């Protein structure tokens, strides 16, 4: 048996307790991937071109009654990019674009939420793409599907060059516009006990 001093015990206990303290802050939601989506629309040659990310995970602690303690973290698997034209997605994962070899994930994190209307919120946080972290502010609407199931819908317009998406000749925003609209739908449920 490993001998433990009182102080070590205390640290051990704290480590055990910390996650439950965090969890106690705001209701934790579990994302339902089949009912959630993240799509993006850019403009090429003056016309829209869309795609989506098939894999992403979320940690959502969101409670309108406890906005101060709410936080959201969404991690997108950049290699899961999907477009109807296969060459388009194949190009997006290359070094000039998402560079998924070096930067396989994009992360959105927000801990500051402001109510801006009926079921309408603004989340201020950071977005990390291609290793670059930038402040971002997203607006979204919430919808209660049932007592323990909810949906969040929102969008944000990003400038791809801010994150270095499109290197070299692609940095030119003539053929591929700088603005890219990202739309997301996240459906989640929570334990009845939560």
């Amino acid at each position, binding site marked *: 048996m490993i001998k433990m001093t009182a102080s070590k015990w205390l640290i051990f206990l704290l480590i055990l307790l910390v996650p439950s303290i965090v969890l106690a802050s705001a209701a934790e939601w579990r994302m339902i991937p089949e009912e959630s989506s993240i799509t993006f629309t850019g403009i090429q040659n003056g016309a829209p*071109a869309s795609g989506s990310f098939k894999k992403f995970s979320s940690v959502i602690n969101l409670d309108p009654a406890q906005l101060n303690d709410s936080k959201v973290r969404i991690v997108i698997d950049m290699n899961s990019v999907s477009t109807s034209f296969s060459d388009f997605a194949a190009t997006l994962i290359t070094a000039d674009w998402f560079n998924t070899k070096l930067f396989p994930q994009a992360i959105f994190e927000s801990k500051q939420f402001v109510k801006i209307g009926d079921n309408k919120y603004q989340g201020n946080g950071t977005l990390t793409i291609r290793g670059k972290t930038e402040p971002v502010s997203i607006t979204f609407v919430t919808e209660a599907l049932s007592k323990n199931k909810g949906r969040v819908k929102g969008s944000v317009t990003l400038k791809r060059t801010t994150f270095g998406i499109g290197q070299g000749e692609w940095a030119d925003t003539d053929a591929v516009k700088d603005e890219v609209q990202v739309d997301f739908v996240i459906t989640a449920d929570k334990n009845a006990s939560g």
Partner: protein
Amino acid sequence: MRLKNTENRFGLISIFLHWLMALLIIGLLILGLYMVALPISHEKLKLYGWHKEYGLLALGLVAVRLLWRLINITPRLSLPLLEKIAARTVHWAFYFFMVAMPITGWLITSAAGLPASFFGLFVLPNLISPSEEQRLLFQQIHQWLGYGLIATIILHASAAFKHHFINKDDILKRMIS
């Protein structure tokens, strides 16, 4: 010179539409053959954008041209019957290609889910929903129509030169003035 066609001569509008479309179509064929061979690049994307815009312009112009042909008389062709049939067949083959090329191009663009903009004025609606399988199919059709169109242009131009240099008649001249 008059705007409308007569029994024996082409009018200015027919002549203008003929040469404008000749230039546009040959340009689109050269651009098309060149751009498909390029590796994915900024240049390739831009060229595809142009090909789509000018291809759509060709579709609009062929509508004008067909309308003009239908409401106007076509100068008579004083040729032996077989030659006349051959010439008219080639002319109608051009109308087929001029409609089929842009439509199949539009179908490729639709199937790829990469719609085209018409010189920034509007975005073309998708004719079909995105599908990799359909895109490949229409790509093949578009490509072979393109080869067919090139062969038809060579045939048409050769016949025009034959009439001008060998028969020394006014067949080519009347499409110029």
